[in-house]
């Protein structure tokens, strides 16, 4: 079992590096490229605080998606907030003593798993049954859904059927945070669950998951509508 522990520990470190460096690199690239012209999609806020509010609504409420398609919004929103809650719930494996608010959301966090599965199945259904969405889907789009669904599914399996030794698991995770390799329980479902998470972390910076940082750099959303009031100059503005 010790070999598996070392392997997973190594993979976790590697995946974390890929994720952090990969995303940081992209963010750096985005921030270096000029936005030479003012192109907010109007009507747009005219002030910085208005822009912050617009981005907040996009991130938290998926405002534009809501305007576009109620079904996609429902599935997408439920999935993402299920994901958020599930992630927060997992903080209990990384904190000792467990932060009190993480304790509070534990019970709600269980439903988050179901919410994720519901949302993912809905999104996948659209990919298969709506001819327009089917047309634009690549194999990677299906695989991405399969991957996240498998993560959520294996998580739920552990919760309800194949319980794992969470105490040992927690020691392993806390160990990782202190650069010590502790024993990882050898349950197959757990290893699958963690393996898939490692996968997801590693492909994040080279996949469409970049939509997460991308939103904040989208000039149609993050620019204030004030071109007459303030002369916009950025990099290539001066041709």
């Amino acid at each position, binding site marked *: 079992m010790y070999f598996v522990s070392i392997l997973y520990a190594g993979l976790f470190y590697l995946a974390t590096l890929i994720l952090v460096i990969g995303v940081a690199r*992209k963010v750096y*690239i*985005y921030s270096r*490229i*000029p*936005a*030479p*012209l*003012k*192109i907010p*999609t*109007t*009507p*747009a*806020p*005219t002030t910085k605080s208005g822009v912050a509010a617009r981005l907040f609504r*996009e991130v938290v409420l*998926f405002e*534009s*998606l809501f*305007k*576009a*398609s109620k079904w*996609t919004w429902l599935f*997408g929103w439920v999935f993402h907030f299920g994901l958020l809650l599930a992630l927060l719930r997992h903080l209990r494996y990384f904190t000792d003593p467990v932060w009190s608010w993480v304790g509070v959301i534990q019970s709600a966090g269980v439903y988050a798993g179901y919410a994720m599965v519901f949302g993912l199945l809905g*999104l996948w259904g*659209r990919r298969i049954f*709506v*001819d*327009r*969405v089917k*047309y*634009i*889907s*690549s*194999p*990677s789009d299906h*695989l991405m859904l399969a991957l996240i669904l498998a993560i959520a599914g294996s998580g739920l399996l552990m919760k309800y059927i194949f319980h794992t030794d969470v105490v040992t698991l927690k020691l392993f995770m806390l160990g990782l945070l202190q650069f010590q390799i502790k024993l990882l329980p050898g349950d197959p479902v757990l290893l699958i669950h963690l393996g898939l998470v490692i996968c997801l972390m590693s492909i994040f910076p*080279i*996949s*469409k998951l*970049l*939509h997460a940082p*991308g*939103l904040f*750099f*989208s*000039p*149609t*959303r993050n620019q204030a*509508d004030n*071109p*007459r009031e303030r*002369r*916009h*100059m950025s*990099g*290539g*503005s001066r*041709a």
Partner: protein
Amino acid sequence: MKKLEFDIPVITHYPKTPAVQPDAMAHCQPFIAKTEHQESLGFPGELVENWHDKAIEKMGELLGKYRSLQVFMDSCVKCGACTDKCHYFLGTADPKNMPVARQDLMRKVYRRYFTFAGKHFPKLVGAIDLTKEVLDDWYKYYHQCSECRRCSVYCPYGIDTAEITMAGREILASVGVGQKYSNEIIGKVFKIGNNLGLPEPALVDTLEGLEEEVKEDTDVDVRFPVDQKGADVLLVTPSADFFAEPHVDGLIGYAKVFHQAGISWTLSSHASEAANFGMFIGSQDNMQRVAMRVREAALELGVKRIIVGECGHAWRVAYSFWNTLIGPFDFLDPNYPAPQHICESTYDLIQQGALKFNKEENDDKVVTFHDSCNVSRASRMGTMPGGQFVIPRALIKASCNHFVDMRQETIHEGTFCCGGGGGLLTDDLLELRIKGALPRVQALHEVIEDHGVTHMAAICAICKSQFTKVLPSYGMGMDMIISVHQLVGDALELGKER
């Protein structure tokens, strides 16, 4: 008219999203620019030999120049939210006219040459080599997008297909395949000063004709000055306003408003064009060169204000880009926005009580309003976000008793393009233009049936020309489309005490 080789879409009672029909518009593309029209804009005259490498190189250059392009290439999650938002898809059913699919024409190539996943696992992520077939597809489908930005309203990441279309067209032009219509027009602006190639004497002549016409109609001496040094206002308006119908009635409307408000104004023969097709072809250099004529004219004439006439994309360029490209406007009167839209100016005059209307003059009309895409989604009027929706409607309501709006999801930021914007207003794309007008025509049809609408007012030269051309295909009168300032001008009480 020549018999059409395609079917006019049927207007159904409710708007319908069609089932995809691959390649339904694969036969459709505009004429390719001739050597001379390419070269006068600084592009190679014909397809260069090493087009593949040049195109990839250009793409790399643009990715480093426009943050929008780089972020949009990476961020799409293929959620499909935009797939039913483009009027060209709704009108043609060709899946490559779905915004995301239009982007994917470039994204697939981007992935292949610029991303890890596409270099090593092309099949998995749908990455493809740039072949001649792909380049041809770019030419076709980047000329089936009017850069209207409707898709960007609905995309959860604000991905604006117009930005990608512009990049696509710029890459194409840079390897030698530009579009004839747009490039030829830009060439005329450089040479003569306007899209129509109307030289100064002809312009003066036309305007004198208009003075006589208004005099006959109203018995008032309304002037149409050109190159008048020391005037307060420089009016920059699309050249179609000088003689195309129904545009010219809008120009008469502006002149009447200036006259009645006692504003001294002038046109310029050097900058006798508000349109700026440099934006359509995605060329910031050409856009700047066209726009610079306005700055030159304003300085030369010593005006205090610049007002822009009714034109959608011109207003986008003026409002959003002028300050960056040809600013700063520190030589203009700071009490007025620079530039100012003609509707803003008229609206302010109404607020001040400087204009009186006899609305009964327009009692023969039930009017609706077509929001132009570039005004709605790429600019603003007034001080409040959304002023671009309120102000033109306020002008219509000030001059007409009967006004109704079209279906909610087809107006304001959700407005449908007329089908002829973005450099597509050419007869070699007539099929696309007719089919692309379907969603707007559908909404118009509804208010005709339900409210007896007789006229649709617009504030865009392209919209006006496009509807004049395509409405008859749908059994509607070509004279249904009118200028907002025609309504204003017809109802304005002239000559009475101010």
